[in-house]
């Protein structure tokens, strides 16, 4: 396969970037998208050019490291996969492929196609934990959890935090990510002690990071490689309003944390 790539090149966070066109030649249709970029980078390095920076790690769709906004869609044209699971057979010979980084004020570009997603880490740190008592080792499965609840919580927990929801959203909203993280703990008995403070802290941090708000377009749900559903968002909204309006539980005061 021979392809034309239009790639966003940006030297560092403070530079202005631009689209640069490259040729990708003799690409096997069985290569993954990232292997195709490896081949292009190989030729760039041999020519003495700076290779294209992109995030990747496990290359089996579970780490949430790879990103890339490919031809107008996060993780490319296929449903429910990450960029590393996307194969070149999903494109046709001679196609022009435009590759951009995630675009969001809260995800500043570090270099080329790599963005800083530490805003997600800070949201997670604000409330994405449960308290566990020390002491003797409890028996496994000692707390009864209905199967449907366990399944639903597990579905939410499959979120890998890649940021495709933010990239797909017209408002660059992080609601799908945050709601998955709130849900996976809030639905289980172990997550109850912090349930009402967690949702407040995580939403407060999400707002502070500068993500947009939710218009319920459903683009996030459609692009999520782990098929996290909008149900998580409505569940989080319900918990948030419940916590704010009806429960006498305040957000953690984390102003002393040296922010």
């Amino acid at each position, binding site marked *: 396969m021979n392809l034309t790539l239009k790639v966003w090149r940006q030297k560092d966070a403070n530079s202005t970037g631009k689209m640069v066109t490259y040729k990708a030649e003799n690409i096997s249709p069985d290569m993954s998208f990232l292997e195709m970029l490896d081949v292009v980078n190989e030729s760039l390095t041999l020519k003495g050019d700076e290779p294209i920076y992109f995030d990747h790690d496990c290359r089996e769709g579970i780490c949430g490291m790879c990103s890339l906004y490919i*031809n*107008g869609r996060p993780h490319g044209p296929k449903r429910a996969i990450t960029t590393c699971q996307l194969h070149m057979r999903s494109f046709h010979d001679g196609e022009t492929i435009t590759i951009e980084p995630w675009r969001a*004020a*809260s995800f500043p570009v570090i270099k080329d196609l790599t963005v800083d997603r530490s805003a997600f880490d800070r949201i997670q740190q604000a409330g994405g934990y449960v308290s566990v008592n020390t002491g003797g080792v409890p028996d496994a499965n000692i707390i009864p959890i209905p199967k449907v609840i366990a399944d639903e919580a597990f579905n939410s927990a499959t979120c890998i935090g890649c940021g495709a929801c933010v990239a797909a959203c*017209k408002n660059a909203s992080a609601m799908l990510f945050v709601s998955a993280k709130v849900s996976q703990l809030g639905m289980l008995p172990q997550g109850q002690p912090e349930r009402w403070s967690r949702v407040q802290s995580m939403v407060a941090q999400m707002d502070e990071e500068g993500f947009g708000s939710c218009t*319920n377009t459903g*683009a996030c749900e459609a692009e999520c490689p782990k098929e996290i559903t909008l149900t998580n968002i*409505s569940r989080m*909204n319900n918990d948030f309003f419940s916590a704010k309006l009806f429960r006498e539980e305040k957000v953690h005061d984390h102003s002393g944390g040296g922010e």
Partner: protein
Amino acid sequence: MSEIKQTFNSSLGKKLIMALTGLFLCTFIIVHLGGNLFLFKDDQGYGFNVYANFLTHFPPIEVVAYLLYASILVHALYGLVLTLKNRKARPVAYAVQTKSPASWSSKNMGLLGAILFFFIVVHMGDFWYKYKFTHSVGYKEYRTNVLTNQTTVTDFVPADPTFEHSSTTVNDVEIVRVKDIHTLVSTSFHNIWYLILYVIAMGTLAFHLLHGFQSAFQTLGWTHRKYTPVVRFIGTWFFAIIIPAGFALMPIVYYFFK
């Protein structure tokens, strides 16, 4: 107090306000359509004029009306604030237009809302403002013989321009004198530009509610495997089709058939 402020200033709080005012406006248009069905009645505007008089003179409705005006302004203002904030969340646009599947109306709620706000301003300026705050609207006198149920209608010019409404009975003849908003509506609906404006506005309303009604439930967190399909059904068939179609039929019927 500051906690309440913090709640409503959060991104979710702003959406809560959008959802609640939006649903309130949805209930209003049901009443508005219901009352306006008098326009289809062939009674020389009697029912419509008496209904309009009732709306402007019954105190509980007047109170709700001001709540309604406030809701329109708050909904529009918060919509603007949210739209601007959302734009700021993505300062650098994508080079390729998004191909993520999402309904057209859900992606254009701000634009649809802006068109509707413009329409509401024109609409209220033409009817509500003229009816309530000027003396430019004429009067009609309806004489109904309560025994034969025969109604005759004549123009009526009150001695005092602040005259609003009277209802008296003389020898089995009921005399109702009332402001004649019906003629104003009828003349407006015979103007081709009004017809076009109203039909476009109702098309806009249809798309706005197609997304808006069910989206409000999602924002409030009221989703349920059993009830969400019902909400979507009502949002699509009732709010996005029957209601806008009913409103749009009014100028169409007047322009072409009356």
